C-alpha cells in the first residue's frame, strides 16, 4: 500500500507541489489562484491540495489523507468512493448523486464541491491514481524541489519516519502523525510543531467507521 511521508521541517511553502497538482489535474489556474486567496485553507474544487501554515513559518500540505478506514467511503450511499488496494481513496463521479454526505463525514473536511457548476461533482486528491498505476510518483511529490515528500510503501515509510525521528530528537517531535490517528492514514507527517491545523485528533482515536459500525 502506497503512502506519502511529509517532512514539515523541510517545507518552505513554495507551493510548487500545488502548482504541479493544478497542472496535472487540468484545473483552471486563475480560478485556483482566486480560491487560494478567498478560502481559508486554500482548498476548493479547483484546488484539491494546498499548503497551510501550521505554525509560524512552518508549512504542511493539506489534501486527502487517504485514511486506511475512510469515513467518506463508509458514508457514501452509492459506493462512489473506494479505498483502493494501492492506497488512494478514489472518487467515481459516474455514481455520485451529489448528497455531499462524504463532505460532512470527512473528519479532515477534505472533499470539496463544484458549487458553481449546474452539474456539480465532488473534487478531492486521489494521490494521482492514474500516475501511480503507471508506476510514477504523484505530481506533488515529483515537483517538490526540497524532497519534503517521500513516496513509497507505507510500511517502509513508517520505518523510515521512526528512524528519522529517533535519530534527530532535537529536530522532531517523537511521533509520526498518521500512523495511529483514525486507525492510520496513507499520508504521514513528521514535524517539529503541533499539527492541530490539519484537524488531526489524538493518536488513540479509532477510525470513524469503527466508532459507528454496530449495524
Amino acid at each position, binding site marked *: 500500500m502506497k503512502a506519502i511521508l511529509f517532512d514539515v521541517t523541510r517545507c518552505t511553502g513554495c507551493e510548487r507541489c500545488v*502548482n504541479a497538482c493544478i497542472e496535472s489535474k487540468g484545473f483552471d489556474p486563475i480560478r485556483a489562484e*482566486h480560491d487560494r486567496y478567498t478560502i481559508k485553507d486554500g482548498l476548493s474544487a479547483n484546488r484539491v491540495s494546498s499548503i497551510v501554515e501550521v505554525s509560524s513559518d512552518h508549512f504542511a500540505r493539506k489534501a486527502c489523507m487517504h485514511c486506511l478506514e475512510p469515513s467518506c467511503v463508509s*458514508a457514501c450511499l452509492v*459506493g462512489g468512493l473506494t479505498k483502493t488496494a494501492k492506497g488512494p481513496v478514489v472518487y467515481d463521479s459516474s455514481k*455520485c448523486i451529489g448528497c455531499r454526505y462524504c463532505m460532512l463525514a470527512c473528519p479532515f473536511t477534505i472533499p470539496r*464541491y463544484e*458549487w458553481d457548476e*449546474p452539474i456539480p461533482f465532488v473534487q478531492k486528491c486521489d494521490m494521482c491514481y492514474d500516475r501511480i498505476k503507471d508506476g510514477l510518483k504523484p505530481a506533488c511529490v515529483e515537483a517538490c524541489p526540497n524532497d519534503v515528500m517521500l513516496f513509497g510503501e507505507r510500511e517502509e515509510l513508517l520505518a523510515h519516519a521512526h528512524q528519522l525521528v529517533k535519530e534527530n530528537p532535537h529536530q522532531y517531535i517523537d511521533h509520526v502523525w498518521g500512523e495511529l490517528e483514525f486507525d492510520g492514514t496513507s499520508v504521514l507527517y513528521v514535524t517539529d510543531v503541533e499539527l492541530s491545523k490539519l484537524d488531526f485528533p489524538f493518536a488513540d482515536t479509532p477510525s470513524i467507521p469503527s466508532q*459507528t459500525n454496530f449495524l
Partner: protein
Amino acid sequence: MDRTRRIKDILWLLTFFGIVAMVFRFYYGLGATTNLTDNLPWGVWKILNMVAGAALATSGFTVGFMVYVLKLEKYRPLLKPVVLVAFLGYGSSLFALLFDIGLPYRFWHPFVMWNEHSFLFEVFWCVSFYFLVTFLELTPTVLERFGLKKVQHFLHKLSPGIVIFGITLSSMHHTSLGSLFLVTPQRLHPLWYSPRIPLLFILSAIGGGLLMFIAIKMFYDYLQCSRKPGYTCSSVNGNPIKKSDSDQKEDFLRLRGLATIAAWVLGIYLCIKIIDLFWTGAFSSLFSWTWESFLYLSELLFATMLPIFLLIHPRTRKTQSGLAVAAVSGAFGLALNRLNVGIFGYFRDAGAIYFPSLAEWAISLGVISMAGLAFFFLAENFSIFDERWKTRHSQPLQLSIGFDKLSMVWKSVLLSGVDRVSLMAIFIIPIAWWTMYPPFQPDSSLPIHPPKALDAERHVLLIDGNQDGVATTFAHFEHQERLGGKESCVKCHHLTVPGDHATPCSRCHIYMSEETNIFDHTYHLKAVAKAEELTGIHPENNSCNSCHAPDVARSGTTAKNCLQCHDEDMHPVDAPEERLALMTATGYMHAMHKNCINCHREKAEEVQNNELGDCITCHRKQPGSIKFPTLLAKNHLHLN
C-alpha cells in the same frame, strides 16, 4: 371559510416563490442560489425539510402502531388524518431533496448501487419505502370517492400488513436519521453529539410527531369551525355541518389522550437526554453559557418541559388552548432540535455561520406550502377529517358581488380558485423573479485571506488595488511576456523605493481609445462636478476645466495627474502592514526571487550542486525565519 382562503393565499404565494427558486436552482446551480459552503455542506433543505420534516410526520407510524398493534380502537378515527400527514410530510421531504442533491436525475442510483455500510443508504431505502407505504394506506380513502370498491377492499385487507411493514421501516429510519450525525464526532458540538443520537431521535420523533399532529388537527378544526357556542362547522361552500357538543368533547379527549402519550414519551426522552449529558461529559459545556447552551436549553424547554408541564398541570390540561400551546411548542422544539443537530451544532467547528439564502427559504417553504395545499385539497375532497365532499356538489360555484361602503366601490370577490390563483401568479412570479434572479444579487465581496505560503512561481496574481477586500486576477506571466520578457520587470517594480510595492494598473491602462482602459471618464465628470459643487442644468458639462488645462487640446497628457486628487487612495502607503502588503502584488519580493533564483539555478547546474537552487538555501529555518530572506541572502547580494 375565509380563514382557510387566507391561509391558502399565503400558501400559494410561498408556492410561487418556491417555483421560481426551483427554476433558478436548476439553471444556475447550487452555488448561485444557496449559501452552502464546503465546510457546512448540509443546509436547510436537508435538515429542515428532510430530517425535521420526517420527524414531524412521525404520527403516521405511532398512531398506526396504537390502533393495529395495541388495538386502541379509540384512536381509529384519527388513522386517516394521520396517514395524510405522514404521506405529505414524507412526500414533501423527498421532493425537497431533489433540489438539494447535486445530480437529481440520479436519484435512483441508491436503489441499484448499494453501500449497505452507509447510514444514508438505510435512510434512503426506509424513507422511500415508507413513502410508498403511506401512499398505499392513503389510496383506499381516495378510491372511495371514485367507487373502485374492489381495489379498495383489496387494499383494506392488506392494510394491517402494510402498516406493520411501515412501522418497521419507520423505527428503522428514525434511528438511522440520528445515526447520520454519528459520523461527525470531531465536528458536531459536544452538547448534541452522543453515541445515543439514534435513540434520542426516535423518542423525540414519537413524542414531537404526535404533538405536531395535534397541532395540525386543531388548526384544521379552527379553520373550519367558528368559535361560537355549539361549534358550527361550515363546509367548503358555506353549507353548515353541525357537530354536537359530545362529538366535540370526544374529539378533544382523543387528542388529549394522544398528548398524554406524547408527554410520557417526552418525559422519558428528557430523562435520557439529561443522563446522556453526564454520560458524554458535555455537562460542563452546557454551563459555559455560549450561544449553543442557550439553543440547547431553549430546545429542551420547547420540546419537552413546556408541553409536559402544560399537559400535567390540572388547569391547562383541560383546556383547548393549553393543549394547543403544548402541541405547537412541542412541534417547534422538535424542529429546533433537528436544526441544532444538523446545522447550528457545526458552526463552531467550521468557524463560520450559515444562513440560508432567499432562494433556499423559498424552496424550503415553497415545498412545505405545496404540501399544505395538497393537504387542503385532499382534506376537502375525500373522507379524511370529515365527509364534507359529499355535500359539496350540491352547491354551484358562485361569484359574490358586493358594495364596499368604506371605499364606495363595487367589489367582486373571486371565489373560483383558478381565477384567484392565476391572478396571484401574475403578480407574484415577477416579484419573485426580480428578488431572487441570481445575476441581480449583490456581489458579495469575498473576504481575502492573504495566503501565508510563498508560491515562488506564481502565474497569476490577485490584486486588490484600492484595498477594499475585492480583488481582480492579474495575469502576471502574460504581462511579463508582452512587455519584453525578463528585462521588463523594472517597468512595474521599483526595487529601490522602500514601501513602493508595485505600479498601479492605471499607469498603463489609462488610454481611453483602448479597450484596456480602466478610467471611467463619465463617472469622473459627475463625481468631480459633485465634489466641486458645480452648478448648471448639467453640472458635469462644466467640469472639464477641473482636470484639463484650459486653452489646450484636451487629452490625457494635459489633464491632472490622478494622484493630485487620489492621493490617499492610490499613493503607496509608507509602511504597509503585513496584511496589506500580501494583498497587493508584492512586487519587491517577487522581483527579489527573480533576481536570485535564475542565477542560483544556472550555477547549480554548473557546479552540479542541486541544493544551490533550492528555496531552503536562502530561506533557512534556523536561526532566521523563512518569511523574510535571511541575512545571508542580503549579504550575498551585496557581495555580488
